[in-house]
């Protein structure tokens, strides 16, 4: 027997919906955010609608059961049932949505706010647009010394940062679970791989309190490292972050 079109459409949508949930939440073990799932489903529905209605025949078949339900006198009982259930379901849905909960409201967080042009770091005004890692050039000029600096940076990292950012630099240190916002994962292609070294220097030196207004309300626990570390130590740690993760800092030059 051929499945009626309306049922086909509903089955496809349900299949995709549960497909997303099964694939993400169960197989990949990384839940799909509900806000995103809603958006995904909206456009999947649009796609299904497009495929089912691009010609007259398909459209007629698709809406036939709905039309019959509303117009056909023999479907009176069904009609009454549906007309009671649909508003009730809508009401219940609204109720659940609006019900107050203890959940903190969602926040749109800007993870990478724009840096200021200049910032006061170690008592000096530095121009972040021009700032460069003083050790970066050694990577080519003196690879041996460069390796040493990376090692030193690793030591600084292990002593100071791994509690939060993790010993694998994946943002999963022992304290991480208790923090919101959580420490960033440097392995991720969306963090340091996208940034210039000057940006990292600014973030590490000035920490959560140094974030611009635009990033508020944001109670980041990232410490202000200029109070605890020396300037070179920060630059060496940055070398280590890129070295360990295999990312390279964002540059505009093409050498």
């Amino acid at each position, binding site marked *: 027997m051929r499945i009626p079109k309306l049922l086909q459409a509903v089955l496809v949508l349900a299949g995709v919906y549960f497909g997303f949930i099964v694939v*993400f939440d169960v197989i*990949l073990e*990384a*839940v*799909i*955010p*509900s*806000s*995103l799932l809603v*958006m*995904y489903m909206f*456009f*999947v529905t*649009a*796609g299904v609608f*497009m*495929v089912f*209605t*691009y*010609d*007259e025949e398909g*459209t007629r078949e698709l809406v036939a059961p709905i039309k019959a339900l509303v117009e056909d006198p023999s479907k009176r009982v069904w009609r009454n049932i549906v007309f009671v259930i649909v508003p009730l379901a809508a009401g219940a849905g609204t109720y659940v949505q609006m019900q107050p909960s203890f*959940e*903190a409201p*969602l926040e*749109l*967080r*800007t*993870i*990478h*706010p*724009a*840096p*200021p*042009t200049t910032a006061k770091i170690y008592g000096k005004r530095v121009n972040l*647009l021009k700032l460069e890692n003083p050790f970066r050039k050694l990577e080519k000029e003196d690879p041996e010394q460069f390796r040493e600096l990376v090692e030193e940076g690793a030591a600084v990292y292990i002593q100071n940062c791994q509690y939060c950012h993790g010993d694998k630099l994946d*943002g*999963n240190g022992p304290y*991480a*679970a208790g923090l*919101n*916002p*959580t*420490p*960033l994962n440097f392995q*991720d*292609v*969306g*963090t340091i*791989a*996208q940034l*210039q070294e000057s940006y990292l220097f600014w973030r590490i030196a000035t920490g959560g309190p140094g974030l611009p207004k*635009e990033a508020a309300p944001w109670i980041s626990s990232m410490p202000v490292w200029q109070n605890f570390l020396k300037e070179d130590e920060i630059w060496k740690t940055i070398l280590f972050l890129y070295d360990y993760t295999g990312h*390279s*800092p*964002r*540059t*505009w*030059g*093409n050498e």
Partner: protein
Amino acid sequence: MNRPLPKFGIGLALAAAALTFTGVEQLGALAAEHGEAAARLYPPAPKLSAADYPSIAGVNSRVAVWIFAQLHLWFAAFVLAVPIFVFIIEAIGMRTRDKRYDDMAYEFIKVSITAYSLTAILGGMLLFSLILFYPHLFSYLSTIFRESMFYYALLFFAESAALYIYYYGWHWLQGGFRKWVHLTLGLVLNAVGTTIMLLANAWLTFMMSPAGVDGAGVFSGDAWAAIHNFLWNPINIHRFVANIAYGGSIVGAYAAFKFLTASGPRERAHYDWMGYNANFIAICALLPLPFAGYYLAAEIYAYSQQMGITLMGGIFAWLFIIQAVLIGTLFLSANYYLWCGMGRSDGAKRYTKYIKYIAIVLVGAFLVWFTPHTLVLTNEELKALGGPHHKILGPLGIMPAKNTAVNVMIIFTALSFMFYRRANKVATVPWVKAGNAIQVALYAAGIANILFLGIYHGYFTNTVYKVAASIPQVLTTLVVIAGSIALDSFIYRGGKEVGPLHWGRIPERAQYALFLLAVAFTWLMGLMGYIRSGIRQHWHVLDIMRDASPDAFTPTLGYAANVVSVAAIIFMAMVIFVFWIAQVSSDKTLPAGYWKD
């Protein structure tokens, strides 16, 4: 990336525009000769305080300028774009000697005539509100751009003259030599129109990437340097292409409006055909648009990292999600229109079975395209994930994934087009099978290459290559599209038609897809225009002239979106008025017994 900008030729029109500019350039050179003496003539950028901004009748000055600028821009985009494709359609008509093209071109230009005067009125309103609400900014800009502003005003005479002769002389200048004269007028019209746009672009890009001035804003006297600033060409290219797409979508909406109100099958057929052509124009210009946009964004980044991060990573990033959704909507509705249009041909059945696969790929690519970099997570989800970074969705949030997705969407839209074109044809060459196999191979290889570039270079190399990989991706897309069109033209050489095309045999739903296209475009332009201007933040002229008005803050996203939406609604209402007026002009009432014989 601090290389000199490639001098892109945007075609003939630009060449004509360049002629006008040499005048400006000479002036600039002259001034530069006088050197420092000349520099002393110009004041530094004024340092303002809140008291320097008049408050008039309780109007919010930012919102007033914002809305007038936006309305002016929408109409201007439309009015500049229509003559471009009217010119092309007229030329096609002259070549094919098919009068339908000529009639359609005339009808398009007719719609733009009423819009033309609205453009001018709104431009005047914008100018007044700038002078009234931001007098110091305006006077600073006008010392630097005094010549170009003067020429700009003069050019409007040329523009109006060319437009009116072109339109009112349409039926007079017909046949042989006269037709050529008419076409030449169209060219002049476009050259002037484009020059006007380029001049206005120079002023606004100067505000983003000032040039020809020193750190305090003292003008060197070199007008050409101020015009030819860092972001001028990227904006020129982006606007030129976008205007065509936008103009196409608006006349598409016009055709849809006329289709839905048509009184008989003949009229329906005519407006169906017109809607098809308008949609064709819109899509042709839409396909290269993401690349122009990407180039612009990359250049903004290159000019100022701060502006770049504000644009893509900071607060405005959320508007890019809306942008992505709207662009996807454009692609989906354009495709839907094509699929509906296949009903015009009796031979379409052979291809409609593939539509669902195209839809699956399009929607899939679309989902990747709008997946945000920063996810909105509930606390529970945050805990379940162990952090704000999602190991699957995170990588989909960054540029390489987006580039890959958009290239795939473009290729599949091209595929929809190919099926549409094939729907009514039967190939008769003996090597059809081999030809089709090559087509399949071409598409498959192209898509494989795009995926490879996106995945390998996007995730396993550093940022320089990430940005660079988008270029071969684009080239692949272009090669696939050009190659498949060329190949199909050989396969169907001397082919047969299945039967006559049934123009007008298209569901009314498809017309709403055309409306959606126009509305989505309008909204998109408004939002992106706001972003472009908003990334200057508290600067009138970036790093040179500070905005000290009470409004010098970045409004919340919701507020900004509301302003743009209100402006879009006003614009739509005005457009409907324009459509209605175009219709009224051809209506006649016979007042029985009113006039004496």
